[in-house]
């Protein structure tokens, strides 16, 4: 079909004659070089989730919050300095004590802030990794995924519970795998094990919520239980995937998740579950409280599964997506357990 022929030399300016090179020369074994290369910064694309609705007057809010925060910090700092000065005037010992306390507070606050920032960066890094993986999975390239594998492995470097998986991942990866295969290998050898454990966590949490709601005497207590348990679950799942979120990170995660869940349609599943629960003869006789418990359990399960989606450095594909099916079955046995 390519009817035209040209001289071998002129065919391609990049043409290089096959040859043997000096094995003692400048030769780099590929996987090592890639694995020890610099870790990806994990910087996500700016504006990772573009808002569909333009945010009006965002700068005003920022200005307000920023100025207020600086003002408060200034006031507190001024007062503290004043307090320390007056304490020194009163007595040397009191002054040293006050100064030490102030210093401790400042150091502690900075430590906390640094921790929060680090955890936020980790979350962002995982987002970046997920985007990388998606790219590698579809691009059909070769040799770029080792860096990804290295980054994921370094995410779990200090985890003694994953040492076996990490070793087997290292053992199985070879220079012959292309990028898609490397990503699949990370999935198989490392992440699926974490998935299993995370699923167990979700299962347990949703059962806890269901039973606790069913048994709790006051509605307000329900809300508290659900909130507390969900936040705890999110942090557990996130830590399992190596995201280790701080308080701010956890809240941020929860916020994003609530958005996701709203899209996924909790109402649909709730209806479905109520229908299922009330349809069965046993559940028909149950009080509304137990039904509510089941729904709360399902909500928790949704939160947990969404957390799994958001904290995983590799998006699920069609085959290994965690499903609500087993959790739902488990939850439907809750009414029997309660009664």
């Amino acid at each position: 079909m390519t009817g035209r022929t040209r001289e071998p030399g002129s065919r391609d300016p990049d043409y290089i004659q096959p040859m043997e090179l000096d094995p003692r020369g400048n030769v780099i074994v590929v996987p090592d070089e890639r694995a020890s290369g610099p870790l990806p910064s994990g910087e996500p694309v700016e504006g990772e989730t573009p808002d569909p609705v333009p945010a009006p007057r965002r700068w005003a809010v920022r200005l307000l919050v920023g100025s207020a925060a600086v003002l408060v910090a200034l006031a507190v700092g001024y007062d503290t300095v004043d307090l320390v000065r007056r304490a020194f005037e009163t007595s040397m010992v009191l002054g040293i004590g006050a100064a030490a306390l102030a210093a401790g507070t400042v150091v502690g606050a900075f430590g906390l802030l640094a921790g929060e920032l680090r955890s936020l960066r980790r979350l962002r890094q995982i987002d970046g990794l997920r985007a990388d993986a998606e790219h590698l999975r579809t691009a059909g390239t070769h040799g770029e995924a080792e860096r990804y594998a290295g980054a994921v492995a370094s995410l779990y470097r200090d985890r003694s519970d994953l040492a076996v998986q990490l070793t087997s991942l290292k053992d199985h990866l070879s220079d012959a795998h292309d990028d898609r295969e490397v990503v699949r290998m990370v999935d198989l050898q490392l992440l699926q094990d974490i998935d299993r454990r995370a699923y167990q966590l979700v299962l347990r949490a949703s059962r806890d919520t269901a039973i606790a709601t069913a048994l709790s005497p006051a509605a307000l207590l329900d809300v508290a239980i659900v909130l507390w348990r969900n936040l705890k679950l999110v942090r557990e799942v996130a830590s399992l995937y190596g995201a280790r979120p701080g308080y701010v990170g956890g809240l941020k995660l929860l916020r994003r998740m609530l958005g996701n869940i709203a899209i996924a349609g909790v109402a649909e599943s709730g209806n479905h579950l109520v229908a299922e629960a009330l349809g069965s003869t046993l559940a028909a006789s149950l009080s509304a409280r137990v039904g509510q418990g089941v729904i709360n359990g399902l909500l928790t399960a949704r939160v947990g599964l969404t957390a799994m989606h958001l904290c995983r450095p590799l998006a699920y594909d069609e085959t290994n997506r965690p499903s609500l099916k087993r959790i739902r079955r488990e939850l439907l046995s809750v009414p029997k357990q309660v009664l």
Partner: protein
Amino acid sequence: MPPSLFRDLTNLGGQAFDRVGELTDRVLDGNLRIGVTGLRRSGKTVFTTALIDNLLHADRLPFLDVVATGRFIAARMEPQPDQAVPRFDYETQIARLTAPDPVWPNNTKVTSQARVAIRYMPGSLLKRRLRGVTRLNLDIIDYPGEWLLDLPLLDRTYAEWSRETLELSKRHPRDALAAEWLAYLSNRDPSGPAEEAVARRAAELYTNYLLACRASDQLLSLIQPGRFVEPGELIGAPVLAFCPLPEPATRAGRHTLWSMMEERFEGYKTNVVRRFFAEHFARLDRQIVLVDVLGALNAGPAALADMQTSLSATLESFHHGRSSWLDRLLGGRIDRVLFAATKADHIPSNQHGNLRRLLDGLVAERRNAIRFEGAAVETMALAALKCTETVMAEHQGRQLSCVRGIPLGRTEPTVLYPGEIPDDHRLLDRDGIRKLNFLDFRPPTLAGRHGRGLPNIRLDQALEFLIGDFLS
């Protein structure tokens, strides 16, 4: 011909008897027969050895689902079902490959068979409840690749075959090798009297021509009939004393040289080819077709075209298509076919994609035909035994992906830049468009150490495609 018909019938009876025995086997256990199809030097023996070794150790098969999900329990070699067929000598082969001074297997001279029994936990809860731990018996056959090219003979008459073979032998690069035989034939009259001495001499010269084809560095694969170069147990048998003849003008006379040769050709088909096919290929469930694309590329476009023809002709003999449970029970059809470009470790790994696409193009016609018949088809680039590693080397300021390994016959490793293979065989039409140079490498020293099985490239994915559904 009544005698051959009778023989066919008795064969059929014997087969039916065998199958009843096998049937009970199949009902009780999962049995799977894998046909390792490949022209000579495509690496069937190494593939079989590596396959068995990796199944026994199961530590280098991360993409085999049963291993990845931890359901694999163990595998071991068991006595094969066909008592009359020699056992595949896995122990010797693996010892030679993993010795401190490793060597590749020699030419395979006879057929042999191996059975690997795999014990595993079924993946689905239902199956696990019903059957608990299950086993799968995997039968693999090794045979001289030369014999494979006999299969297309089954559809040819002697006249057709003679015409094709003579035509082929007059073309470059075969004409030089066939000169002596052709000269001898030109002095003989096919419609002359049948003389044994003439037939023997002609067959001998023809055999020499085939042997020369095999030995030539052009890597010619179309060598028919296969038993002439790899006679197995048939050395000196009269059934091998024939060769193609130019068709005489008049086909009269029963005792002419032509009719004698024709009779022997038919006898060869019935006694040798059909038996070989019935004993080893008729009952296959899955098929892997090993293709040494790189070897053919190295030898040039003629070799590539030759290989393409041979493969295509060979594969026509098999029955493909989706098998029903009845077919499965009787072993009727092949429902999965994998085309594999072997020796993928001879090129840097970033070219594996191109190698796969190249093979895809080469076998496109057969692949589509098989797919049309209803079987699943896949192409892959693999290496049963990985001998090299991919390294980056700098050459005149450019980074080149190279392979590092010890070439055959040397002791020091070298770094080879083999050139870039194109992703379409049509780009290779003319000599010299792309100069490629692949070296043959030695097996890695102490390949099987740590008890992990032979290092390989994509053997696990090949296995997953071939037997994965049986292990689910």
